């Protein structure tokens, strides 16, 4: 049994920021990260971030882990980072089990936990959707930007949210042709500046369109694309064939909440937060005392918001573990102010509606 005051599950933007503020508060921290390096999805985000100074706007996602790791460095032995280590369960007695590598199991008994496990990509149902060559857009981004592997030559992007638009742009940067970006919705879901950027670089964006069938014998060779009406029904006679050897599915993310569900936390379906999420209070604590959440696991949003939530959850979690930070109230107020600014626009209004449904006043 290993002891640690604050255990953080997930070393992405939310988890790393939670670690920074928990350590600053004086707690000892262990981060469990299932990948071989820290950073979560930041490690493949070669584009510049939106937001403001405090959330490292204008910096490229790939450069942000180093900034956060530098903040963690000075805490020395107070911080333990375990990579290639997957948390398997949070038990009734507060014990967390983790798998190191492929066969070594370790138990932790923390005073408090921050679950910052992030999200996974949603799938889309259509005929032949299991053909090799059909990927999640995030998977293609990992292949290209982390491993330097070109996924193919002609890509059809399904989904015009920020991920679909950004990955399309990065595919073009890698010298891959993007034949079109589709979205079933009647309007572009991602930021218009991203859409304009790929449109002027020659990629058509087709809203109210969907893919109905993938073509190919052993691997993907093309796709049948159809127009949709305002009720999301396929319009007969609008079938068009696109030749492609890669299709990227980018139809949204869903929170990775399994650990919380198994731990008995109260869960709720909140469409604005993109799925089943843990109910929480204003201090980011779930219905189980001592289990906190931050980032996409409690609702899909931009990484900039995940970082601020991480700082907040880290402060609250450390306070729960007996380490209330100096100027606690002021820090909380400042961070909550940052979130309010980030969520002050139309996309934020949607998130705020979800949070209102999910966050207990107390």
């Amino acid at each position, binding site marked *: 049994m290993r002891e640690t005051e604050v255990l953080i599950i997930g070393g992405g933007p939310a988890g790393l920021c939670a670690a920074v503020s928990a350590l600053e508060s004086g707690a000892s921290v262990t981060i469990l990260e299932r990948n071989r390096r820290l950073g979560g999805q930041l490690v493949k985000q070669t584009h510049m971030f939106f937001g403001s100074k405090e959330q490292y706007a204008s910096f490229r996602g790939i450069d942000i882990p180093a900034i956060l790791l530098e903040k963690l460095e000075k805490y020395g032995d107070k911080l333990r980072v375990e990579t290639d280590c997957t948390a398997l369960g949070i038990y009734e007695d507060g014990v967390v089990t983790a798998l190191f590598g492929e066969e070594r199991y370790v138990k932790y008994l923390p005073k408090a936990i921050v679950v910052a496990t992030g999200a996974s990509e949603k799938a889309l149902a259509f005929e032949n959707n299991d053909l090799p060559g059909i990927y999640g857009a995030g998977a293609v981004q990992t292949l290209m930007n982390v491993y330097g592997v070109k996924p193919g030559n002609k890509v059809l992007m399904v989904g015009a949210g920020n991920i679909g638009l950004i990955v399309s742009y990065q595919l073009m940067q890698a010298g891959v042709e993007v034949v079109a970006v589709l979205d079933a919705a009647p309007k572009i879901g991602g930021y218009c*500046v991203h859409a304009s950027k790929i449109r002027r670089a020659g990629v058509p964006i087709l809203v109210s369109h969907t893919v109905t069938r993938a073509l190919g014998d052993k691997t993907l060779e093309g796709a049948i694309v159809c127009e949709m009406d305002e009720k999301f029904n396929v319009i007969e006679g609008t079938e068009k064939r696109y030749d492609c050897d890669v299709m990227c599915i980018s139809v949204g993310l869903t929170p990775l909440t399994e650990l919380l569900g198994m731990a008995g936390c109260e869960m709720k379906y909140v469409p604005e937060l993109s799925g089943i999420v843990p109910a929480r209070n204003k201090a980011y604590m779930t219905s189980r005392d001592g289990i906190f959440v931050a980032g996409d696991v409690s609702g899909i949003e931009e990484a900039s918001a995940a970082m601020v939530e991480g700082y907040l959850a880290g402060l609250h979690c450390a306070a729960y573990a007996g380490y209330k930070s100096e100027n606690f109230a002021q820090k909380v107020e400042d961070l909550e102010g940052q979130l309010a600014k980030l969520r002050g626009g139309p996309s934020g209004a949607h998130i705020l509606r979800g949070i209102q449904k999910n966050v207990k006043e107390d």
Partner: protein
Amino acid sequence: MLIKTGVPTEEQVKEVFPPIERINKGRVAVAECFQRIPCNPCEYSCVKKAICVGEDINNTPNVDFEKCSGCGVCLTKCPGLAIMLVDGSKSAESVEFSVPYEFMPLPTVGEEISVVNRSGEVITRGVVSEVLNAKSFDRTPIVRFVVAREFLYAARYLKREVK
């Protein structure tokens, strides 16, 4: 329509363009940022304090064309690559555009290029006049190119070279 195609309307574009008298004085920023999103690096990157987003970071930017010196720092700091410079001071027949360009290979000075509009359609030919790639640009180079003046409101970008 911008929200359906990614292409802004001519009215939207003209609304954010500087007056022609200012363009004829030298380089000036045009920020094609039409949607309320939470973002303000253009404001704090501008040493001349010529760009204002304001307290609500979801506001779209407002460029003070008289304060703008056309330095181009904002081009490399805007995460949406939505800002460009236009310059009509060098000749009565042509205008020069400066755009952030993140594709390899970079064009070379003197190279003839195809120039595209906001829909990505080739509308004319242009000549690359300068390529800047300072370390402080953080991997967002700036390409300057010259086109005939009649394309002032239509030209937007250069066609990518695909090998």
